[in-house]
């Protein structure tokens, strides 16, 4: 199929590999090695999108990642589209399916283009001015309108099916950019013996040398392309060098931590699903060399945004690198020498280059002479003052710049492509990200990197060095110096002989003069955000002085290129309007990411099942087989309840509760945090950490421990067993384990380093099987050996060691249900087999397995608190009626002094009480407010809130725990829980609903 603008030969495309692709449903042909942009241009397609605000037809402007216009959506599978990709970066593959954006119903006929006619209404600050009043319009009218209008492209509908990878890497020298400076820097660093990573955002490495066809340009007497090939081959052969093409350095963070995004499969038609789509490289580099080159600047003349108007160097890149002609009749507008190379190359390819309009009054130099010699008409002191053509430029209006700066018309010229070059802007984005402050170089009219803040250096044209020989030399030096700084030795490769590629001169900043009615023309500064020179001037007129404010008011420089194309022009316009110098106005700061990064790349493997560790107990598999429902507690999966066929949660929990109270229940308590506290000062340490007294706790005894923070508030609780004089088995809440260990370790290291005691987490050493209920002893008796279970030998809150089912155990007699209970600690790997043996006994006794919900109900019936449910970090022991847990004779413990604080001893604090609803079937909502009045006046403070609420099978009615101001004194009185359906009357009672004497424990 024909590609009308493809030249017959040449370019770096693979003509043996033709590919077909679609754009807006039409099928086209291109070649392997094309980008979507180059393939479209080869098919003579310039119109590729509509602009964001005015919906103006837009074409491909550049050949790089700074492209502001050619944003397209790609579709792979159904629901897996990717919006807002730059056509200049999309590598062509067979079957590529691209769509244009921001148009309806079609690219060539777009209803939104009415905005263009209404453009006088949409000047900078339009949103701020228009959507201010009335305030009541904001939610219903303005925000929905702005949301509908904002954003480009369509977000994918389905979850991303691609895979994403991550690699942490270290190197001595990271080189960013593989143009002549980057290649030279990487070579010097590699030859110095450094570990080098060289990355480049493009498919091929070589940068500007990839489109350098000028036969007069030679490096070591070879064409530039051959030098690139040889240099890359040498680097690839060095096993201390990592070459990363298709990899964008998008973030420069602290301590030379640089994030790179590698596109692994986006260029493949049918990628292997085992490959990641993209890979995030998190690189820690001892030294960084930034070699990101320079970016050609658009010229700001009226109607400079029509399709067919492009950067001059882009015209050259498409021709030389991709074999695609950007037009048939080309006019070039320039203020700098490099555009002449484009003119010559295009002319030599048979394209009519009718005019080079040079802004400068008297351009001189080899490039200009060569253009003239090639028969190209060169007009000095000439500007483009406007263009015509609806979906493609058809004519350029010309003006002659007189010595006084005014412009007179010089007619017009027909063209189907207008190339422009306003000069070159050093690409200082990454330097700026590294927190460096740019400095203004008057001679070149550019901001260049100032002093390094981090261990980095810029090389080549990104720091204003121009001319091929100088750039390569600068790269070698940067690589050598970086290697020396990183590894203590550096080697400068012998500089190759370079001919051609001399530095050009020239350039312009800001809006160009013209002879048109200034009020009626628009000259675009930021193409993607539709910001014109007028908008910038308007912002200044309205009082914005700081470039950062102008940027935000006009949105100039806020597009995906972050102003790499537009900033200097905008700045110049602002500086003229403000009558201040450019360095005085200053440049905005560049931020991460350099170019947009997919969410997948940032998430890497942290998705789905691997987002967080999912911790399972040794008994998890058994519970799963029994059909348990699970709940998440921190990272743990805990069995929530064990429904029998036909049972819902309510029925299952009611049955489990009743069974435990009547016979026996089996509960997996393995997730409880465990800390082994060992050393001669172990008891003294616990005495200081917990409120309770520990020094006299006998070996083989257990004690409930309450832990406060320094503010005197309850932090954690748990049962602690004394295994030996110098060894304690501490348990913590499931969620509190890491916090408690850190808290203990903190005190040990900072406050009491003199204590001979050490802490070891043993949470996962043990599986913990709780056997609770009147038949608990009967259940385990046949299984244990070496342990006397008799109540006298093993009373409540004691422990023994021995074996169960032949497995060594630390057997605790302890209860969190109010029933006779044991907790069997066995080595984790034996947890399931011991559990199953006990389960057989429990089954035989008509007991059941129960989950966390039943555990919660049973403890609430007993008024046992759960840290984090009855407490919220503002609750003292007295608040929850646990003064008994405080060792009255203790000299000190963490939080003790705070318990005497005025706000702690004051009356009226919220206290733990029980609540009984008048209607026993009503279960209160946890978190509901408790009030004095049934219908309190608005803004009356609540007395407190419900902390726990359940249906209690043992009581045959609902129960609730609550924190209520002065609650204990209100026992017997009626309070209210106001709900949307009306207030619920509740009676204040003791928080211990069941067996208040504890008779069922002592059996």
């Amino acid at each position: 199929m024909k590609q009308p603008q493809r030249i017959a030969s040449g370019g770096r495309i693979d003509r043996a590999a033709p590919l077909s692709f679609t754009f807006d449903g039409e099928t086209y042909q291109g070649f392997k090695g094309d980008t979507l942009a180059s393939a479209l241009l080869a098919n003579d397609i310039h119109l590729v999108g509509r602009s964001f605000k005015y919906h103006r037809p837009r074409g491909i402007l550049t050949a790089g990642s700074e492209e502001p216009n050619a944003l397209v959506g790609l579709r792979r599978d159904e629901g897996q589209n990717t919006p807002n990709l730059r056509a200049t970066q999309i590598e062509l593959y067979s079957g590529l399916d691209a769509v244009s954006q921001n148009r309806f119903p079609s690219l060539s006929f777009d209803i939104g283009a009415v905005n263009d006619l209404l453009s006088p209404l949409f000047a900078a600050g339009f949103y701020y001015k228009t959507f201010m009043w009335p305030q009541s319009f904001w939610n219903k009218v303005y925000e929905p309108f702005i949301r509908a209008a904002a954003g480009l492209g369509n977000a994918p509908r389905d979850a991303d099916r691609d895979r994403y990878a991550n690699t942490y890497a270290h190197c001595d020298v990271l080189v960013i950019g593989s143009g002549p400076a980057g290649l030279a820097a990487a070579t010097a660093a590699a030859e110095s013996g450094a570990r080098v990573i060289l990355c480049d955002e493009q498919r091929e490495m070589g940068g500007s040398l990839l489109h350098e066809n000028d036969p007069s340009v030679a490096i070591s007497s070879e064409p530039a392309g051959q030098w690139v090939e040889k240099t890359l081959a040498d680097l690839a052969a060095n096993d201390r060098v990592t070459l990363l093409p298709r990899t964008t350095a998008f973030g420069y963070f602290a301590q030379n931590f640089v994030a790179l995004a590698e596109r692994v499969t986006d260029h493949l038609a049918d990628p292997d699903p085992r490959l990641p789509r993209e890979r995030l490289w998190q690189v820690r580099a001892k030294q960084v060399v930034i070699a990101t080159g320079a970016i050609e600047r658009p010229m700001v003349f009226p109607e400079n945004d029509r399709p067919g108007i492009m950067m001059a160097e882009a015209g050259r890149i498409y021709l030389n690198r991709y074999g695609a002609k950007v037009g048939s009749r080309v006019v070039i507008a320039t203020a700098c020498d490099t555009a002449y190379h484009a003119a010559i190359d295009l002319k030599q390819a048979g394209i009519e280059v009718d005019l080079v309009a040079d802004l400068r009054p008297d351009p001189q130099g080899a490039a200009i002479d060569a253009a003239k010699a090639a028969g190209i008409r060169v007009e000095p002191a000439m500007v483009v003052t406007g263009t015509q053509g609806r979906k493609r430029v058809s004519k350029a209006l010309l003006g002659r710049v007189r010595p006084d700066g005014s412009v007179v018309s010089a007619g017009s010229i027909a063209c189907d492509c207008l190339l422009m070059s306003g000069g070159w802007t050093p690409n200082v984005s990454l330097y700026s990200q590294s927190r460096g402050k740019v400095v203004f170089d008057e001679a070149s009219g550019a901001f260049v990197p100032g002093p390094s803040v981090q261990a980095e250096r810029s090389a080549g044209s990104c720091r204003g060095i121009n001319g091929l020989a100088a750039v390569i030399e600068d790269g070698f030096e940067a690589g050598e110096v970086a290697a020396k700084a990183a590894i203590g030795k550096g080697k400068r490769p012998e500089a190759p002989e370079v001919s051609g590629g001399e530095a050009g001169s020239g350039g312009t900043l800001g809006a160009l003069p013209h002879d048109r009615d200034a009020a009626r023309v628009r000259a675009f500064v930021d193409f993607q955000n539709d910001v014109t020179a007028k908008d910038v001037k308007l912002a200044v007129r309205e009082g914005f002085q700081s470039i950062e404010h102008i940027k935000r008011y006009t949105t100039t420089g806020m597009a995906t290129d972050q102003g790499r194309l537009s900033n200097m022009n905008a700045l110049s316009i602002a500086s003229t309007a403000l009558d201040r110098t450019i360095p005085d106005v200053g440049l905005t700061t560049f931020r991460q990411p350099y170019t947009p990064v997919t969410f997948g790349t940032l998430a890497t493997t942290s998705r789905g099942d691997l987002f967080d560790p999912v911790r399972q107990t040794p008994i998890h598999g058994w519970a799963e087989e029994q059909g348990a429902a699970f709940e998440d507690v921190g990272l743990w999966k805990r069995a929530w309840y064990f429904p029998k066929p036909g049972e819902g949660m309510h029925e299952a929990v009611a049955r489990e509760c009743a069974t435990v109270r009547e016979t026996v229940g089996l509960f997996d308590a393995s997730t409880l945090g465990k800390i082994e506290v060992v050393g001669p000062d172990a008891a003294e340490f616990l005495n200081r950490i917990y409120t309770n007294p520990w020094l006299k706790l006998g070996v083989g005894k257990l004690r409930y421990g309450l832990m406060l923070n320094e503010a005197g508030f309850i932090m954690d609780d748990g049962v602690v067993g004394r295994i030996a004089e110098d060894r304690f088995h501490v348990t913590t809440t499931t969620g509190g384990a890491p916090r408690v260990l850190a808290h203990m370790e903190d005190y040990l290291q900072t406050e009491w380093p003199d204590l001979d005691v050490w802490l070891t987490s043993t949470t996962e050493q043990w599986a913990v099987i709780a056997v609770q209920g009147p038949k608990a002893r009967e259940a385990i008796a046949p299984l244990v050996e070496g342990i006397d279970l008799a109540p006298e030998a093993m009373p409540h809150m004691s422990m023994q060691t021995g074996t169960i089912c032949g497995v060594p155990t630390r057997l605790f007699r302890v209860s969190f249900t109010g029933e006779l209970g044991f907790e069997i600690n066995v080595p984790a790997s034996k947890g399931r087999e011991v559990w199953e043996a006990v389960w057989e006994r429990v089954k035989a006794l008509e007991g059941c397995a129960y989950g966390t919900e039943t555990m919660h109900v049973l403890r609430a019936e007993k008024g046992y608190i759960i840290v984090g449910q009855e407490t919220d970090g503002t609750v003292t022991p007295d608040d929850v009626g646990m003064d008994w847990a405080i060792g009255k004779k203790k000299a000190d413990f963490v939080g003790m002094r705070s318990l005497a604080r005025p706000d702690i001893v004051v009356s009226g604090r919220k206290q733990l009480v029980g609540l009984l609803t008048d209607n026993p079937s009503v279960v209160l909502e946890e978190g509901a407010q408790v009030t004095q009045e049934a219908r309190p006046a608005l803004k009356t403070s609540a007395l407190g809130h419900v902390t726990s609420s359940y249906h209690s099978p043992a009581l045959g009615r609902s129960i609730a725990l609550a924190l209520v101001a002065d609650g204990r004194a209100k026992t017997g009185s009626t309070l209210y829980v106001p709900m949307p359906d009306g207030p619920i009357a509740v009676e204040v009672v003791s928080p211990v609903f069941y067996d208040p004497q504890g008779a069922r424990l002592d059996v």
Partner: protein
Amino acid sequence: MSEIAIHQANGAAPVVSARGAKVNLAAPLARFSFRGPEAACVKAGPAFRTGLPTTPLSSSHTQTRAALWLGPDEWLLLAADGSAGQIFGVIEAALGDTPHALVDVSERNTALIVSGPRAAWLLNSQLFLDLDDTVFHVGMATRTLFAKAEIVLWRTGKDQFVIECWRSFLPYVAGLLAEVARELEVA
């Protein structure tokens, strides 16, 4: 340094078997956390039959025993011979009244053996340390993070590492290794 082979594959099918990288679950070992000052350290070494190293990030080992330095007063002791109970008794007897803490963590940890020329690459998908063998050389050990899991990493060969982690974190660590290794299957 002789071959470090305290951890042996447990005989089950590897968790990962890809080109250039293999991950095996290790067979059970006796493990202890040993804490204490120098006086305790010098007594514990002979009792455990391999000295407790005092150089940060280092390890010592015999054919069946290893001691990994985890901190100025903390070591992870690994034993492929003898029961945890018996070893515990020997060390406790040797220490006597010298203040220290010895805690059996045999069941707390499980281990993965990551081997092959792509082992370091595989680990570096989730682990941010520099695993170049001139930087993190054979015998080095450290407590670190593997994605969101705390692990102890021990280099037991140029192309072989051991990951010791708490048992409930093992599926997460192994799952990530398997996920990352998938691209190694692609020719």
